[in-house]
């Protein structure tokens, strides 16, 4: 947490050190008056986090695989006469490894520990250690949250998104094999509040054609959306083929019928409860107040057997408008639908099969891009038959590794992280989109919004890993009711309880030690999603979660203003911040400079930088440290992943 007590007396004399360069302390201060003891804070429920660990027995195999990948990359260096980049220094590596695996810069102590470690296999060990942290799952979660457009508020009308989002997060923590995870999302059926994996399909509730378009794009790296209205202008897809593949999922229903005779006796159950609740709740006008119970409990994914027919304006000769469509997948092998099969399940099994020519390839390429900044195939979600990878042999090998690993994404990342190619310095020259790139090393990337934010949290907050978002169950346990059995009195009661647990008292109890000037100092993966448009995270390009992979790393003026003058920058200069404490704990100015540079840039200052900084400190005394810190977080070296 952002430390509640100030430093010990021993350092009290130093406590004024940065004051001149810091905002006036505004955290709660003790008042002299005696007050009655406050009521005990409400309990803060937490979620038990289980993180799957890498298997040490697989190490030899992983390292061998990394070597093989390097050999294939080297072949292309020779072929295209590319000079590979120098290997990263330990300082460069430790920073990049933390950022790429856990989504934040290392702390001062972590950077220092790696620097003084003499072990010959220390990089390999660091990779394993970091892959085993909950933060690594959080970082991967931020990625999928962007791809899957995760929103806390609702996955669809009156259904809170959090349940599904938490399920995604837990699947990543448990490192559920990717094919199983996707299969689960595509085949999930039942009531949303019982089966959160249904959230994937519910995100495109009522839009079965768009849903198919998104599914093929995300998991098969192929865009068929154009063919929704006409034959694809650049790719081979015909409009009819779009309808054929869409027909697999077209039978999906997203909501129970409120007037279902069997379930609810025929009368519209929502209207019935609304009438009854009006009698119990004097202020209730029959409107939307209870919708999260009445509509939310109808949200359900099931299969109706509804058939897709071609639209009225179907314009090609290969079929007639309004004719029925038979399901057919866009790649062979075609799956068989036997009597009794649900087409959706048949399709999901086909999509996630190792035999599907694009499923393993797409995830292998996506994860490659996450580490190298650019895919073997670009863009990652618009492959065509004629698309050729930068290194086809390597792409095939990566795909086969994904299959061999049975879609264990963590192990796959581990292999890539152990390659020499990954551990080379970032390419100095600009890589122009569309031009060939033969991976002399990763490309230079600006940190993602989440990485910038989490790095600030790392600089300021003592134990950010202790903060956890409210578990979804706090709300779902109250929300989840059987409308066929429950009484209106019970709904009234539960609604009141729900309002109680979501009120500010509970929120404050959770956030108390992690709030600075109204800003919640939690890591991005534990923050509400998406953040409001004016929040730091959004200014730096966090997705609005409206379209697939909408996050950006473009710069802007508001970002710079945020870095210059925003609350978050000044928070790290506050006497209660970790940064401040680490600096004052060091004794000499030179040691303090080391702390500052190691904390912010994960390296020691150069002789020249030392001179500049010392001059500043001599000139402005204590405030000089604050100025140096402020300036360093405002450098591009801080903002980019080398």
């Amino acid at each position, binding site marked *: 947490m952002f430390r509640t007590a100030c430093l010990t007396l021993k350092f009290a004399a130093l406590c004024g050190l940065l004051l001149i360069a810091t905002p006036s302390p505004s955290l709660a201060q003790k008042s002299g008056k005696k007050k009655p003891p406050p009521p005990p804070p409400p309990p803060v429920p937490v979620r038990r986090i289980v993180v799957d660990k890498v298997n040490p027995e697989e190490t030899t195999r992983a390292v061998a695989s990394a070597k093989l990948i390097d050999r294939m990359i080297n072949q292309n260096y020779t072929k295209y006469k590319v000079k590979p980049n120098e290997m990263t220094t330990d300082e460069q590596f430790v920073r990049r490894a933390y950022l790429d695996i856990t989504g934040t810069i290392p702390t001062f102590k972590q950077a220092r520990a790696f620097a003084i470690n003499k072990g010959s296999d220390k990089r390999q060990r660091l990779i394993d250690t970091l892959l085993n942290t909950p933060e690594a799952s959080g970082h991967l979660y931020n990625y999928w949250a962007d791809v899957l457009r995760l929103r806390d508020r609702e996955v669809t009308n009156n259904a809170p998104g959090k349940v599904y989002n938490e399920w995604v997060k837990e699947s990543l923590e448990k490192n559920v094999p990717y094919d199983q995870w996707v299969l689960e999302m595509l085949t999930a059926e039942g009531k949303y509040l019982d089966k959160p994996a249904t959230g994937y399909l519910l995100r495109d509730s009522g839009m079965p054609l768009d849903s198919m378009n998104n599914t093929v794009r995300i998991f098969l790296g192929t865009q068929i959306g154009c063919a929704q209205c006409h034959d694809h202008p650049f790719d081979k897809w015909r409009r009819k083929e779009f309808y054929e593949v869409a027909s697999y999922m077209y039978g999906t229903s997203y909501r129970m019928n409120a007037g279902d005779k069997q379930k609810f006796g025929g009368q519209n159950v929502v209207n019935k409860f609304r009438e009854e609740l009006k009698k119990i709740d004097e202020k209730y006008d029959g409107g939307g107040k209870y919708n999260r119970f009445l509509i939310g409990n109808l949200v359900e994914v099931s299969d109706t057997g509804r058939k897709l027919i071609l639209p009225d304006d179907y314009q090609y000769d290969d079929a007639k408008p309004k004719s029925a469509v038979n399901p057919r997948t866009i790649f062979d092998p075609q799956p068989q639908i036997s009597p009794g099969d649900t087409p959706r399940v048949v399709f999901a099994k086909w999509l996630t099969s190792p035999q599907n020519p694009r499923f393993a390839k797409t995830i292998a390429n996506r994860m490659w891009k996450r580490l190298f900044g650019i895919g073997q195939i670009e863009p990652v979600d618009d492959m065509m038959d004629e698309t050729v990878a930068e290194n086809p042999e390597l792409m095939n090998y990566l795909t086969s590794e994904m299959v061999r690993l049975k879609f264990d994404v963590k192990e796959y990342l581990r292999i890539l992280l152990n390659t020499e190619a990954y551990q080379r310095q970032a390419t100095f020259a600009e890589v122009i989109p*569309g031009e060939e790139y033969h991976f002399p090393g990763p490309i*230079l990337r600006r940190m993602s919004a989440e990485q910038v934010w989490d790095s600030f949290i790392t600089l300021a907050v003592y134990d950010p890993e202790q903060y956890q978002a409210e578990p979804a169950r706090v709300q779902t346990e109250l929300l989840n009711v059987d409308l066929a059995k429950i009484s209106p009195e019970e709904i009234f009661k539960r609604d009141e309880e729900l309002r109680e647990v979501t009120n500010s008292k509970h929120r404050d109890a959770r956030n108390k030690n992690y709030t600075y000037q109204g800003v919640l100092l939690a890591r991005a993966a534990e923050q509400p999603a998406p953040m409001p448009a004016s929040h730091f995270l959004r200014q730096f390009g966090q997705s609005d979660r409206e379209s697939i992979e909408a996050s950006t790393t473009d710069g802007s003026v508001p970002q710079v203003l945020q870095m210059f003058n*925003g609350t978050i920058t000044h928070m790290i200069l506050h006497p209660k911040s970790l940064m401040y404490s680490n600096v004052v704990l060091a004794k000499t100015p030179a040691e303090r400079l080391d702390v500052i540079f190691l904390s912010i840039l994960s390296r020691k200052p150069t002789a020249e930088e030392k001179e500049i900084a010392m001059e500043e400190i001599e000139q402005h005394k204590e405030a000089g440290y604050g100025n140096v810190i402020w300036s360093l977080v405002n450098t591009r070296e801080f903002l980019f992943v080398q």
Partner: protein
Amino acid sequence: MFDFTQKFDDLSRRSFMEYAAKSLLGVTALSAAPLFAADAKAAPAKKKAGPVTPATADRVIYLFMTGAMSHLDTFDCVGGRANEAGTKPISTKASGLTLGSWLPNLAKVADQFSIVRSLHTETADHEKGRYLMRTSYPEIASIRHPGMGSWVMRLQGVRAGRSLPDNVVINGDNRHPGAGFLEPIYTPIPIGDPNAGLQNTKQPEYLTGGSFRTRLDLIDKFDTGFRKKYPQKQVEAYSEFYKQATALMQSEDLKAFDLNEEKKEEREKYGMDRFGQGCMLARRLIENDVKFVEVTFGNWDMHTDIYDKIGDTAGNMDRAVAALLEDLKTRGLLKRTMVVLVSEFGRTPKINQNDGRDHHPGVFCGLMAGGGIRGGMVWGTSDKDGHSPDKDAVTVADFNATIAHGLGLPLDEEVFSRSGRPFKVAHDGKPVTKLFG
């Protein structure tokens, strides 16, 4: 040590301004690099071919209805169509021009704007549609095209001595193309929340001008090595943003971004929702001679229960846009300010089984007002079902060429990307000149 209790007085402000004008933070150091140098000389743009008509507009307020606005329920509601379902046409102040019944306020000012009812495109994908609408080019992986606001700046040149930006996007969605392949100096300033305006423009009180200067110097010194090592556009772009941010912090005109300067009842005329307030902020910026302001408004993607939703969404739009047009007119700004409202495509004429309408690129509408545009005119018609253009079809590029034409931009001038490919402000579009008059 300096006195940190001292207020930021005029002297230090002036010296600060000089300092900012010297454009440190990489810009001076880079003056030899072609990145910015070429663009500093960009004004006036070289004319390649074709005469350019004199501008009838100096500024644009561009209102983007994201999610795809149903044309049949708003600006192409003509009555007598089976598909108009829950929307009735209402007559307006412009004879012969009808609107959907959700737009009573716009009906009262219909003599101020014209409607294009024959816009059409091919893509039914939101992002691709938006990209095309904003850039006039289809989205492809190998290049990013600039949005219209950046084109305006590029072709008219960056104005010296101004501290306010010329290109602002309010409530923008994440996939905005921004300056595309153009230099970072043309990047729009995003305002996430119009009520918050431009945030973090004030230095903390404990800082004086002097210490801020010190800090900027320090950034520059610490950053030199990294910048030299990575001479990349994404790195250098920040030099421009540092420079603009520093200038903005000292701008006398920052109040332009502050809606609190407005009276409550004036704000309420626009509606207190994000879009309404965004429109008001756009007016404030235009009043301060900002050239291009886009305001985005979502919520239009109504696949289900369209008639439960459209009342609120169209209602907010109706109130805000009508208030904006009235306000601009009263202030004498409408004459030289073009107001444009458009969406990425329309919605299916047929109501689907979920009582909604799906994506429909076949035909849809755009609105134009002010800046030389006639009032009360309809250009183009859709066919009897509102399915395809019937007469005077207008492409997205034509529509954008019409905006560019109003601004007097050279439609034929080619601007080259870094890879040497030529692009034009409205691609291959031909302006609808009959809308002017």
